[in-house]
């Protein structure tokens, strides 16, 4: 992406985000959101983030890699276990990063 296009992207996303935040406060303060839409919006973060996690773990270099040499998949699964057991954000990141760096240094050196 060129620098000009990058700036344009940032500005458009910024305007859209501001528009979303202004929506009810400024433009439609009498309107109500239907319960169904409210429920659907509840799933947005979980769905979007999962859609980003899966390819990052299974397609680390742009192609499917299910071999034991896929250290990002191993570190990611470990991080999922840590997140599940502890619910601790920082610990999850630290353990996942440490696992990746150790595997990178000793098992799959580049």
């Amino acid at each position, binding site marked *: *992406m060129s620098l000009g296009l*990058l*700036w344009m*992207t*940032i500005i*458009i*996303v*910024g305007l*859209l*985000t*501001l528009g*979303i*935040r*202004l*929506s*009810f*406060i*400024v433009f439609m*303060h009498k*309107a*109500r*959101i239907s319960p*169904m839409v*409210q*429920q*659907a*919006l*509840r*799933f*947005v*973060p*979980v*769905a*979007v*983030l*999962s*859609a*980003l*996690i*899966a*390819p*990052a773990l299974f*397609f680390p270099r*742009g192609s499917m890699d299910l071999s034991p040499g896929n250290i*990002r998949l191993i*570190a*990611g699964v470990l*991080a*999922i276990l840590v*997140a*599940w057991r502890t*619910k*601790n*954000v920082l610990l*999850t*990141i630290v353990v*996942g*990063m440490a696992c990746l*760096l150790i595997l*990178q240094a000793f098992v799959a050196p580049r």
Partner: protein
Amino acid sequence: MAVYNGAMTTLRSEFLHGIRDELPILIGVLPFGMIYGVSALSAGIPASSAQAMSCIVFAGSAQFVIAQLIATGTPSLVVILTAFIVNIRHMLYSASVAAYTSKLHPLWKWLLAYLLTDEAYAVAISHYQKAGDDMQKHWYFLGAGLALWTTWQLSTAAGIFLGGHIPASWSLDFAATLTFIALVVPALKDNASTAAALTAALTALLAIALPLKLGIAVAALFGMAVGLSLEMKKNRDR
């Protein structure tokens, strides 16, 4: 004059109270902003644009998503579409705050809307719902929002500084994926959200060949649809 002073004291104490209640959240925001700065740089985004994004977009998870998508060479339009989907949940916050801000000057409304993030909303709405003088509570909102804004800008700058000094062989770009994991897994509290997450993950893998990297947006919508239909089925069965 005494009345005037009294009013000023209330505004000031509301403002400071908002900052104080935001503090515990800021401890968690600090590393998050730093990791954003680091991953934006490793995505190839120049330092000035990465910092500008924290100012102009000012939405943590969307900024992570944008960095990740840019790193994988996604076309601009798809980046915009995906970021829009990520941020659309702020509409809920806007709707819920609107009842309390309806009498404010338009400038106040625009300012508070700009500051309406997950973290500021959580603190501000619980204050609005408490008993007390509703006429001054926007100062509390402003305090909480500005505290978060300042922390986000400074932690982004710290991350950009760090990212510029750490070699690429440290694979710090992976910290973004780990952050997503740390946010998603604890949020899987019921079958509907777990199904939404698994559907989105699987669809993203299957749809990876879709043109223009549209797979992420398609997968997210699929995941939401499955989560919603399970939720509605549960409500019907009840």
